[in-house]
């Protein structure tokens, strides 16, 4: 059935015109999809703003209630919400800043400089990108314990401070968007590698940095398995782990758990909506250039 529909739409695309009726059809289907896509958030808001008794009632209540603040107060009372929010912010912000710096610096060198073994080193970088993260979950934890980093936020930030994906992606961008003439002009003015990076490359990298920054920020914010494993100190958790703990410890108190979930989701959605325009354009561009 899906194939039939794509045939129809594909033909519409081929002809390059759509009748009024088919335009309305497209919009109705799209809006239906948007509804499915956004409904869980609406439902989260509903459940976070009513009492547990109301959540369990049949038929279910479908509109938000008035208990949101009370539920949020309970969350703050039961877990160290602001502490773990703070930890998550620290990890996401410092991690993103380090990734942006190290990845763009390496991408600049790979894209615009000739040096011995460049191809080999870049090949190694791509090969390491293929190694699945979960392969080294156990030994990575052991390494962290040996370093005395188990339980520390360093364990979440430092190992990923420069990553193959970002370097690879930024290099593609740098090759296309950084004209050699600009760099040559800078060299005539006596600028060295790091000054060229800072004064010529970085300003031109801005759209790519916006994409990589949001991408990295989202990943760090939402990461679950690694903080779950490595944050052995229950007083220092990230938001995701604290939320999972809340879910386990108070699993009959639905309303409070839902309020916690809502509180953990909102900051990230705000960050995303601010940068969405850049992000979505560059995400699409990155995929087609592959």
């Amino acid at each position, binding site marked *: 059935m899906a194939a039939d*529909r*794509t*045939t129809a*739409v594909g033909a519409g*695309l081929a*002809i390059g015109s759509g009748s009024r009726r088919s*335009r309305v059809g*497209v919009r109705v289907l799209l809006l239906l999809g*948007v509804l*499915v*896509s*956004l409904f*869980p958030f609406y*439902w989260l808001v509903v459940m976070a703003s009513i009492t547990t008794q109301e959540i369990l009632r*049949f038929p*279910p209540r479908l509109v938000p209630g008035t208990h949101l603040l009370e539920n949020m107060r309970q969350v703050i009372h039961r877990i160290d919400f602001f502490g773990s929010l703070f930890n998550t912010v620290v990890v996401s912000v410092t991690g993103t800043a380090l990734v942006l710096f190290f990845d763009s610096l*390496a991408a600049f*060198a*790979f894209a615009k*400089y000739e*040096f*011995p073994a460049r191809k080999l*080193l870049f090949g190694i970088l791509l090969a*390491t990108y293929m*190694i*699945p993260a*979960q*392969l080294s*979950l*156990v*030994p990575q*934890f052991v*390494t962290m314990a040996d370093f005395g980093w188990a339980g520390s936020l360093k364990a979440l930030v430092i*190992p990923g*401070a*420069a*990553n*193959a994906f970002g370097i690879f992606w930024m290099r593609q961008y740098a090759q296309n968007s950084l004209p050699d003439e600009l760099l040559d002009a800078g060299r005539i003015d006596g600028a060295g*590698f790091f000054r060229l*990076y800072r004064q010529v490359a970085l300003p031109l990298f801005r759209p790519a940095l916006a994409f990589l920054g949001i991408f990295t920020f989202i990943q760090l*914010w939402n990461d*679950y*398995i690694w903080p779950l*494993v490595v944050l052995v100190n229950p007083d220092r958790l990230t*938001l*995701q782990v604290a*939320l*999972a703990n809340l*879910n386990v410890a108070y699993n009959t108190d639905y309303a409070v*758990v*839902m309020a916690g*979930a809502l509180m*953990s*989701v909102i900051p*990230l959605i705000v960050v995303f909506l601010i940068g*969405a325009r850049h992000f*979505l354009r560059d*995400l*699409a561009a990155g995929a087609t250039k*592959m």
Partner: protein
Amino acid sequence: MATVAGAERAPTAGSGAEAVRGANTAAPRGRWRRHVPPYLAISPYYVLFTVFGAFPVGFSLYLSFQDWDGIGDMRFVGLQQYRWLLHDSVFWHSILNTFEIWFMSTVPMLLLALVIAFLLNAQVRHATAYRVAYFIPNVTSMVAMTIVFGSVFAQAGLANSLLKAIGVDGVDWLTSSLGIKSAISIMIIWRWVGYNALIFLAGLQAIPTELFEAARVDGASSRQTLFRVLVPQLRPVILFAVITSTINGLQIFTESQVLFYSDDPGTTGGPGQEGLTIVLYLWQKAFNDHQFGYGAAIGWSLFAIIALFAIINWRLVSGSERENRPRISWRKGARNGR
């Protein structure tokens, strides 16, 4: 730390390569000096990878030949962990579960994403708003949304209430094998369908419109246009989506772990362990049961499975490059590639 190590590295790497080059270029001294900054610039990744990537991977191979609880002494057991693994019915169950969930989520998700991509392509007004709306599920925390879906799929949850309202019997979403896998698959589809639709959309918009006009001039039917023009043009993007969905799909963890958390190792992954995935089993063995060697062995098995898939994917890609003739259909190409 990274800078110091990088400074040590750069001259060695530079002079090593310089020795080779010295044969045909003069003035070797000042030469490698100008290579120092780029080496410095790329060194952080290699230093970090050596310490936190390469070493743990090697160590995990070593660990998988040991019996170790993470605290006491290690005991060399050779291939014993792998032998146990081969006879561990729970491990095989977790592989089967992972593949079932992967299949149940990936196939409908990619088809749906393709449909959405076509719809988005036809929609001109408010294009960005639609994209944002479809992408938002991918942005949000998996833990939070798993909690939401967990309540939707509960026995008296919203899903069953809706079914009841239209006169259908409730489904045992979180207690039966099929229900558990469906619930997890629905979560994955919801999360990733918009992401893949946007990738397909980008691929669609990169196709030159002249191709479609030429097909129309030649009197091609819709079906011919679809299979001879559109699908071959979209193949690289589809492959990208298949590869990423496979790699992500084989590492499912959060959904099962949050839905079915339990202190009793016998019920990890829910009733009948029907939601137990490979990574969840790895986590349980290593970090709940403290069998680090066994956990490492599971990690290597997962790696082998993903490598196998990567080879299959690679064969598909190289197969499609070999037949660069325009008239071949996706279906046929895929079969030849295998």
